[in-house]
């Protein structure tokens, strides 16, 4: 059975963020992926320099019109980095239109920033809330900072987290909430990233996954994460192991995704370090700088191509879902 998906996110010529991190893994999993590039950049901004342009409102609307004219249909839509509120509004309208005539799964990754730093226009926050209030989102994958922005609340305690997750379920009718990374929460150990999952109608029962931090410099991880999550949720539903809305569905899918993430990031780190050291050794006065500056960035691009065989992982997952309430006594 063929399955088709529309991916709406950034495009970079070089490197693996946005669509470049998401599309290939999905294609490897058999998805027919259509791709709308919200921006068209030479590389991601972490390099310190980049060139390129963003899509204009008229352009994205034309594209939506174009694909509607030829009657394409999707089993799923995923949206990621969108640089301004106008584009978000157009996307909201399109997804709403598509959902009115077919059952499709919409995953919203409300990419806005990380660790207190905003990398889209500020007006995107309220536009995402508007999009959410039309109740078209099935799965949402904010990180801690993005959750705070959407809920207008600092997430410092377990109660804050519960409140926010609940708010997203209740106010916006989102069935599956995954906080892709929590790094700053009272009572949690440092050296770990926590990933929280919650399914609507299982009141206040959040599961946490505890992931050892790999000390490296990764970009595009959130984009890969959401693509893999969409694939796992969809295929676990298709295989009839779970019914829609089951709590086990999300927990199992996220566990699989985290397992793939870890494999991919470990490989990325080891291959990156190897190439970095090789080049450093062979070039005395070199463009190769310190790890984590613009010049070393290219070595630590996600090794999406080399990780191909990881994406088909179908095991039960190498992590343990913890009950939020039980670990924080």
């Amino acid at each position, binding site marked *: 059975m063929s399955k088709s998906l529309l991916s709406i996110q950034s495009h970079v010529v*070089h490197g693996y963020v946005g669509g470049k991190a998401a599309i290939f893994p999905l294609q490897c999993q058999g998805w027919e992926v259509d791709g709308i590039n919200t921006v068209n950049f030479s590389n991601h901004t972490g390099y310190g*320099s980049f060139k390129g*342009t963003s899509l204009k409102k008229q352009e994205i609307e034309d*594209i939506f019109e174009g694909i509607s004219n030829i009657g394409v249909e999707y089993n799923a839509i995923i949206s990621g980095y969108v640089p301004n509120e106008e584009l978000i509004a157009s996307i909201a309208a399109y997804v709403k239109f598509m959902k009115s005539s077919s059952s499709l799964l919409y995953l919203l990754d409300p990419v806005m920033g990380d660790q207190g730093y905003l990398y889209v226009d500020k007006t995107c926050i309220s536009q995402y809330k508007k999009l959410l209030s039309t109740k078209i989102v099935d799965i949402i994958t904010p990180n801690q900072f993005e959750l705070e922005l959407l809920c207008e609340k600092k997430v410092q305690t377990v109660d804050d987290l519960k409140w926010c997750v609940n708010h997203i379920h209740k106010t916006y009718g989102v069935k599956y909430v995954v906080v892709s990374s929590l790094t700053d929460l009272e009572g949690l150990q440092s050296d770990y990233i926590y990933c929280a999952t919650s399914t609507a109608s299982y009141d206040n029962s959040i599961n946490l996954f505890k992931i050892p931090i790999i000390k490296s410099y990764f970009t595009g991880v959130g984009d890969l994460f959401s693509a893999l999550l969409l694939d796992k949720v969809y295929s676990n539903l298709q295989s009839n192991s779970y019914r829609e809305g089951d709590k086990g569905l999300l927990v199992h899918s996220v566990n699989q995704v985290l397992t793939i993430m870890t494999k991919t990031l470990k490989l990325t780190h080891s291959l990156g370090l190897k190439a970095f050291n090789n080049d450093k050794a062979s070039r005395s006065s070199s463009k190769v700088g310190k790890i984590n500056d613009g010049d070393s960035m290219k070595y630590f691009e996600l090794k999406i191509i080399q990780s191909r065989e990881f994406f088909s992982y179908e095991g039960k997952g190498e992590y343990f879902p913890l009950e939020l309430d039980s670990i924080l006594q």
Partner: protein
Amino acid sequence: MPSALSISSHVVHGYVGNRAMVFPLQYAGWDVDALNTTNYSNHPGYGKFKGTKTTPDQISDLIEGLEAILNVKSDYELIITGYTPSEDALKVIFDRVSSNIYSSSSSSSSSSSSLPSSSVPLWILDPVLGDNGKLYVSEGLIPIYETILKSGYVTLITPNQFEFETLVGVKIDSSLESLKSALEKFHDKFPKIPNLVISSVSIGDKMYSVGYNKGKAFYIEVEEIDCSFSGCGDLFTALISIEIFNDNPSHELTPKVLGNVLVKLNKILQHTFESEKVKMKGAPFTNVKDLSLISSRHVLTDRTSHEHEVEYL
């Protein structure tokens, strides 16, 4: 891992241009940097489409952006250029590529100057102009392509019969003699192109793919499917690129390379054809708009070599 820069069109839906080239290369293990010359909703074969061309300035900027973060001479093993929608876009690509990748001026005292010149990327060029006697780009691109082909930077070109005839200024009248003399004219006009594939040529009532490597020419019969496929020329170029780096240190176009490509392409097209039959539920059709690239992806990793009946000219 080998890396390629692929410059061709982008469509949101369907598989032509970069959308037909990037995935096959990636699935075969290549890191592919994709520079999109268009941003269309779908290919024109649908009868209608929306979207924009990437402007020459945007293309120039993107390449400049890459030059700032990469060593474009040594970080790529391969450059592929395909569909380019305008004269200015093609000029910009040629200017940038020739001055920053192939210029021999060792004025750059950067790290790359210590590398042997053989380490510059191969340039594989698909001179996309048209098909079946019709141009689908402006005529003004022809002389620019001619200049590029005379530069000595291009290793291999993959025109179809019409594009070959247009560039060389000959007609192949379905006989082997005329093919032979056309290839001679090609060599006279473009002596610096070491490798050529004409993706398909009809001779008699059969279809052949014609290869040419440093003066030697050969041809292999193509099993014809009674249907046309959008994007198969782009896929063909991608498969040639993969195969020319597959256990082939000299990167020459050999009969083995072409033969293996034709086997893979045939499997993908057959699969596409069968899928379309199912989709059409028995209704007749003469062309397929979207290659079934994803569902035939296993073909792309096949590294076995196939025996082929090869004829030499």
